[in-house]
């Protein structure tokens, strides 16, 4: 029961998508798998936010929506602007 509540009410999908995406940038050779996983987890997060509300019997929280927006923006940034992101990582993270 607690697990079900956790699964539908917490933005685990978004957080997972972000984490996997970060890994994809660090481990080049596994990037296709990580990118795919990020996409799937993001889809899970969106499903949680817009379809799982009924099972949680409440509206998606503002926090969940903010995390959703940030996760979606990050995934889009990696897919659409990979070189700019790579430059940032090379200069400030690695």
């Amino acid at each position, binding site marked *: 029961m607690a697990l079900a509540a956790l699964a539908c009410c917490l933005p685990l999908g978004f957080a997972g998508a972000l984490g996997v995406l970060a890994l994809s940038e660090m481990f*080049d050779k596994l990037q296709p798998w990580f*990118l795919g996983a990020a996409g799937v987890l993001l889809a899970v997060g969106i499903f949680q936010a817009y379809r799982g509300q009924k099972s949680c019997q409440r509206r998606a929280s503002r926090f969940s929506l903010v995390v959703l927006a940030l996760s979606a923006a990050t995934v889009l940034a990696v897919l659409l602007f990979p*070189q700019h992101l*790579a*430059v940032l990582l*090379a200069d400030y*993270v*690695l």
Partner: protein
Amino acid sequence: MKRYWPLAAGLGFLLVLSMFLSGAGSTPSGQPELVNIDDLSALKAEFNRSADSVRVILLLAPSCPYCLKGARVVENILQNHKDKPIAVFSVWERILPTDWSKPGTTVLHRLRDARVRQYWDADYRVASAVRQTMEARHLDFNCCDDRGVLWDMMAVFPPGAQWGDMLPEPLLVDGTVEEIAPKFASLLETLQASPNIGQVELKP
């Protein structure tokens, strides 16, 4: 449905912006424009024209952070050896799924030195040539192979040697670029001290 219009518009704007930025970027001043490698003849001619210099071939992926860091390290080495005859051939390849466009301006400007020439090699011709040379000369390498394509690596060639049927014997060949760059720097120091460049042995 109306509430999704801003989202769709934003997504469309990002897609258009992405397409706009996906074209080949401009190289730093002092360098020729990015050259597409349709066959090896242009690169081979430029390589042989620079025979009085130490020549370096870099194989890099434009959206790989480690490659971009390596490129910056090489740029710093070039800045520390401004007076040396060095020719760097930076070859960008499509390796990662995110390498869906040619290198943009921010990527090309990782190597700003005027002694650098930058290329886009969509068909991995240079990587194949390097691999062919390494295999023919029985040079071992334990890095830089992604499904048969060499990348994030550096090959250094002595002055005088010509690229004929295959690349000449390298003084140094290994990767990743960031990891091997210090050896390149020490090789340049050695070359400064040694009049006979061909005697230097720094193969891994």
